[in-house]
């Protein structure tokens, strides 16, 4: 489905190769957070956390927005693409089941007609 260039994949790989950065993504999956909150949560300096967030932002895993003095971080478009891709695969699974169900239903209807009975039993 969605293809990423090798360069982008390598960058994402590097971005995710750090346990703190994976922790940040997990945290942002629950709710948006400011850099300060993230720094507190992961016992880091603001500068240290800013670097981690910048790396995640570069590869599209996180987006940030500054309102006043607070920079809020949330999951970026890449995460949303992943979710959309998962939902599409889930849809395809059910589409395949329902196509098979169509055949079963059709057969049951045929059988009912040939039995000449409307009732279930």
């Amino acid at each position, binding site marked *: *489905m969605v293809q990423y260039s090798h360069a982008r994949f390598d960058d994402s*790989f590097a971005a*995710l*190769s750090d*346990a703190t950065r*994976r922790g940040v993504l997990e945290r942002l*999956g*629950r709710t948006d957070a400011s850099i300060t909150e993230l720094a507190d949560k992961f016992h880091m300096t603001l500068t240290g956390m800013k670097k981690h967030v910048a790396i995640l932002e570069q590869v599209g895993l996180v987006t940030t927005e500054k309102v006043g003095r607070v920079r809020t971080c949330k999951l970026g478009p890449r995460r949303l693409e*992943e*979710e959309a*891709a*998962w*939902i*599409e*695969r*889930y*849809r395809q*699974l*059910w*589409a*395949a*089941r*329902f*196509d*098979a*169900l*169509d*055949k*079963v*239903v*059709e057969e*049951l*209807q045929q059988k*009912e007609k040939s039995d000449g009975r409307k009732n*279930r039993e």
Partner: protein
Amino acid sequence: MDARTESDTSSMKNRTTAERKSERELVVTRTFHAPARIVFEAWTRPELLKRWWAPKSIGITFISCEVDARTGGTYRFVFGHPASEQPMAFFGRYIEVTPYSRLVWTNDEGGEGGAVTTVTFDERGGETLVVMSDLYPSKEALDGAIASGSTSGVDETFKQLDELLVTLGASVGR
């Protein structure tokens, strides 16, 4: 986009839709050209369920299919998969079974975080709209289900990479 082109060849009514309706809920819909009574039977009789729940294209096959579709009854599906030695079991309990209109069951194989599935059968003019909703106990549970399906392999790779980096770091320090 690509999802839409695929359905252009068949009638829109036959289209399966899937959507994350809320933080906790996934919804799948599909219309069948048959009365609700017949569609409902195909969802509740094991010998019929077996014929469509594991179509060839999804790569799993039924080993067993036990269904007691009564309120309070249980179900247990066991599948084999070529890539796995262990069979996979899916099981739960029917919370509500209202003939020809509504089925509600639990999904207990995953423990606490399992969804409650509600299927409604809505007949109009000889056609039946099926709406299937998976309601997870929390946003985290649904996010987890999505993440385990889309990135588990990747997470595993990163874990290995972490270990490798630690090993490399240790050897450099020596």
